[in-house]
């Protein structure tokens, strides 16, 4: 992939560049918003790693050009004090985020998820997603867990479908509310109870979830790779 790193700290770029190059990517770098916009306009990019704390621009202002003009995937790299901006960036279309400081393996895993999803989107929209244990059939509205059909209510199904389509990536509370209730301003308690019911039906131990992970303050992440089937 062609990856643009946007970060005002030279040492971070210097560290990420050789790692990404060795993973087979082409790497570009921008130190501020102006350089980032120039790169978005001139290079064809597959993915942008965006630090929200830029000296000249609000990082969120770059999301639109990244998604609409460059059509690139976007992973937000944020320091913890920019929590609110991070959620805003995800709601506005960022694909995922990593918190600083991050483990390099985790970052590479997130990059692979974006890469995989970009390949999927390039193909036809899938109606069936499968993993080793789970099958989701969107046309038939069926979920099968280890060979056993799982009965989900329409709302549970809508929430699960969104999580499974974005498997491996974070899905914000707002996105889930829109999927389940067609409104972004639903009482957070409703969402939490539906996620608890989904865990009851899908997790081996709902008190120690392994499939549906909570991302505190952000949303949920479905921690299983669901491959699309056509």
């Amino acid at each position, binding site marked *: 992939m062609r990856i643009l790193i946007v970060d*005002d*700290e*030279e*040492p*971070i770029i*210097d*560290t*990420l560049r*050789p*790692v990404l190059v*060795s*993973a087979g990517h082409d790497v570009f770098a921008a130190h501020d918003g102006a350089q980032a916009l120039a790169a978005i306009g001139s290079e064809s990019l597959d993915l942008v790693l965006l630090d929200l*704390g830029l*000296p000249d621009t609000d990082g969120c202002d770059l999301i639109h050009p990244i998604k609409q003009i460059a059509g690139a995937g976007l992973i937000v790299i944020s*320091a*913890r*004090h*920019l929590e609110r901006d991070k959620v805003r960036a995800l709601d506005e279309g960022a694909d995922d985020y990593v918190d*600083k*400081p*991050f*483990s*390099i*393996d985790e*970052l*590479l895993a997130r990059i692979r998820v974006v890469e995989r999803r970009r390949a999927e989107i390039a193909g036809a929209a899938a109606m069936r997603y499968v993993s080793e244990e789970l099958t989701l059939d969107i046309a038939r509205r069926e979920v099968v867990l280890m060979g056993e059909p799982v009965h989900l209510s329409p709302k549970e199904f809508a929430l699960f479908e969104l999580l499974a389509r974005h498997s491996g990536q974070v899905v914000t509370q707002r996105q889930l509310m829109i999927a389940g209730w067609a409104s972004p301003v639903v009482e957070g308690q409703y969402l939490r109870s539906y996620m608890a019911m989904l865990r009851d039906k899908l997790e081996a131990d709902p008190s120690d979830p392994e499939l549906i992970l909570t991302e505190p303050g952000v949303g949920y992440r479905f921690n299983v790779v669901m491959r699309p089937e056509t």
Partner: protein
Amino acid sequence: MTSQPAQRVAIDLSIFLIAFIGTHYAQNADRPITAVLVFLTGVIVIAFRSGLVSALIAAICASLAYNFLLSEPTFRFGITSADEAVPLIAFNVAACLAALMVGRLKDSAREAYEAQSETAFMLTVSDRLQSAVKVEEVETAVRGVIPRQGVTSVEIFLARGKAYWRPSTGEVEFDTLKPLVGEEADTAISRGKAVIVELEGARGSLGFVKFRLSEPLSERRGSSKLQSISAMLALAVERCLLLEELAEARVRVRSEALKDALLSSVSHDLRTPITVIQAAAGALGSSQISLPPEENARLLSSILEQCARLDRYTAELLDVGRIQVGIAQDGLETVNLTEIVGLAIKHTRAVHPQVTIERSLAQGPHYAQANAVMLEQALVNLIDNAQKFGGGAGPVTVSLANDGSVARIAITDRGPGIHGDEREQVFTRFFKGKRGGAKAGMGLGLYIAKGFIEAFDGAIAVESPLDGGSGTRVVVTLPLVASDDTSMAA
């Protein structure tokens, strides 16, 4: 309205007397109709001057006097013929009616005048109160207007928990009864010379106001006037309290925002080196990643660099902590400034060999009271700052001069200089200039230098831009002390 009652009665009596004499002459000149008219005129003038009650008294007195002294038979009440009765009855009726009508007219005119002047007074009070923006000013605002109304003093006490607080003086009274009655007040209150009114605000009782009066409060109107003044005072006090709450809330929001900004700045500064270290160490240790040996070496050196950066930040934060706690004066020793300046230059040269540092140190030794390690740190911060922001443009000059009582250490760079309001802020904690970028560090170097220098009774000042529109000079002055051979430390 201005004449005193006694004076008024005296004038009324004179008028009555003049009218009586006039009537007497007219009567002697055998002009009974003129006599009656003169007396009647006197009664009407009194009614016009002094109102209904005086007019009626005057009318009755005139009637008796006329009957007893002037009309036949004199010195006797009584009527001898119908001829005498007619003018007497006509006089009595005319006098009483005239007194009634003119007196009543006069009274209502006076009431109207009083009401108008009261309204005007209330308006003045209200205007004065409008100008008060602090609760302390409310009492002062009315002090100038109220005494005219027979009030000698106004004291406002506001409830604060269980105590009472007088905003104009700042006194706090814990004995709730004392401000209420005061030392001598029980006698004053019992004589009606002090009035206490509760100040009622929209959110309940605010406290109370105490009026001291020049004469006892008797009429009902006087007390209702004090009530209206108190209501206006309560409004003014409440408005001021709300304004203060608003201001406090604004300050709180601003300081919260400042704290947030500081916290995010520190968090960014500390997290960046950790991010680099974690990512680089992860890449070196990961089984998924294999890098050419020269890249591995670069990652290792950047780990070491970032560890040094983190160490520097930690040391700076500790120094800030030291300054905030306060540097003890008894830990200071006599230090040789020439030596310390030389050490600081040597230290900076070792870290930044590419920068040219020119030294121009006056023949020494020069001694000052300081902590050697902290003074060196302060100077290193200043020289480091100079090379960071002006080092590329030419040499950094460090000079030491002896001004008699003080030593002047100047660090001059040839960089672009500091412009606008940034100059005032360079010594502020966590301040980073706009053009500093990533090399700005945490924004603590100058703050620490200033804190240390001031702990040694010295001063620090920045001149920028210098003649020619560029360059920055930071001047440190330290009081010199006589050499102290027994504790020559450096």
